[in-house]
């Protein structure tokens, strides 16, 4: 039986991030800014090329906002279309599209390559961690870590401990998050955990309010910010999440909870169908300049 590797020292982390989309790029920028080397993997070479430009931009945004440690040498970035680098990683972060089949197939492949003791993180926003852990030969190695967008600026992450997640994995993750200067709150496994379970139906309701003509997207956000003290309005938050991801996540929540508030409203579905996916595409409920699309 293979023995479990000793936990990596804080300065020995090597992260492989799977998926060069919005979250994959953002998590990569966070790690690089804190001196941790990252291998970014995607099946699409063009997506990797786009991610490189985006990560360069995000590293500058992080510096501008004072969100990287002063004087720290940045981690080195490599990109590849192969999963081989997962064998040498201390931590593998899965950040692919929010689709159960895609994530389960990928985790099966990755779990067959990693060394025992490697921490596998899923950045799912809604799928229960234990459902995905079932695809691994060592299910205790999977933990949910729900970074918010943009991960290199938001200091708090939601950690999801599945019923089989091992203490070793939680300890290594805790050390990594300390290296990345993130605060974490550990919650139990459930569809949407805490943040998505509360936020996504609320955003769906906000979109429904616009759909029904009660108020414009601008006015909904102004009210939630001005009257209720939200830092960002729900519809601008939706644009930041990505409306396509939001709809995927709402379907997962709807299917697993039966809550009708989680059935994506027509306005959200229409926007996704039209390609208005939010900030990353330049338009969602609001419009965005090129600089904002990269951030």
């Amino acid at each position: 039986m293979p023995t479990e590797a000793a936990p990596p020292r804080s300065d020995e982390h090597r992260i492989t991030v799977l998926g060069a989309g919005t979250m994959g790029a953002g998590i990569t920028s966070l790690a690089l800014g804190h001196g941790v080397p990252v291998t970014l993997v995607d099946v699409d070479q063009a997506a990797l090329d786009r991610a490189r430009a985006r990560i360069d931009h995000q590293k500058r945004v992080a510096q501008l906002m004072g969100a990287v440690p002063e004087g720290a040498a940045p981690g080195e970035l490599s990109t590849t279309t192969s999963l081989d680098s997962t064998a040498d990683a201390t931590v593998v972060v899965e950040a692919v599209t929010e689709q159960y089949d895609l994530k389960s197939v990928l985790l099966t492949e990755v779990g067959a390559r990693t060394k025992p003791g490697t921490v596998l993180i899923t950045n799912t926003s809604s799928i229960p961690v234990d459902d995905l852990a079932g695809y691994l030969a060592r299910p205790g190695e999977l933990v949910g870590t729900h970074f918010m967008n943009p991960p290199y600026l938001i200091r708090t992450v939601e950690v999801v401990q599945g019923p089989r997640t091992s203490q070793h994995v939680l300890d290594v993750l805790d050390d990594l998050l300390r290296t990345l200067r993130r605060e974490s709150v550990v919650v139990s496994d459930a569809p949407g955990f805490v943040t998505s379970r509360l936020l996504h139906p609320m955003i769906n309701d906000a979109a429904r309010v616009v759909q029904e003509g009660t108020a414009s997207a601008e006015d909904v956000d102004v009210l939630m910010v001005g009257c209720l003290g939200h830092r960002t309005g729900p519809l601008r938050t939706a644009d930041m999440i990505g409306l396509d991801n939001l709809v995927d996540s709402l379907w997962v929540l709807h299917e697993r909870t039966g809550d009708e508030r989680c059935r994506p409203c027509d306005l959200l579905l229409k926007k996704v169908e039209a390609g208005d996916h939010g900030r990353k595409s330049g338009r969602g409920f609001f419009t965005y300049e090129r600089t904002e699309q990269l951030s």
Partner: protein
Amino acid sequence: MTTPAQTPQSRGEIEAGLIAFLEGRTRVSWDEDVDLFATGGLSSMFAMELVVHLEQTYGVSIRGGDLKLDNFRTVRTMAGLVRRLKTDKDTDG
């Protein structure tokens, strides 16, 4: 076509250009000393747009310790930064 080399050089002209840019983007009027993010209410994410605008318009490169929010708080601090970077560039080369 306007190139960086042909753009206005004086501090006052840079400030006027920046105010025009801000007013075009935000549809409200601005003074040179208003803190864009604190009293002005702009999102700090907008600061990166200002960085890119300054680099493209004035042909400067904003790197290292200059890349901090305080340098972009007011039109006056931004114009000062551009003037300094342009002077450094001319001296260097």
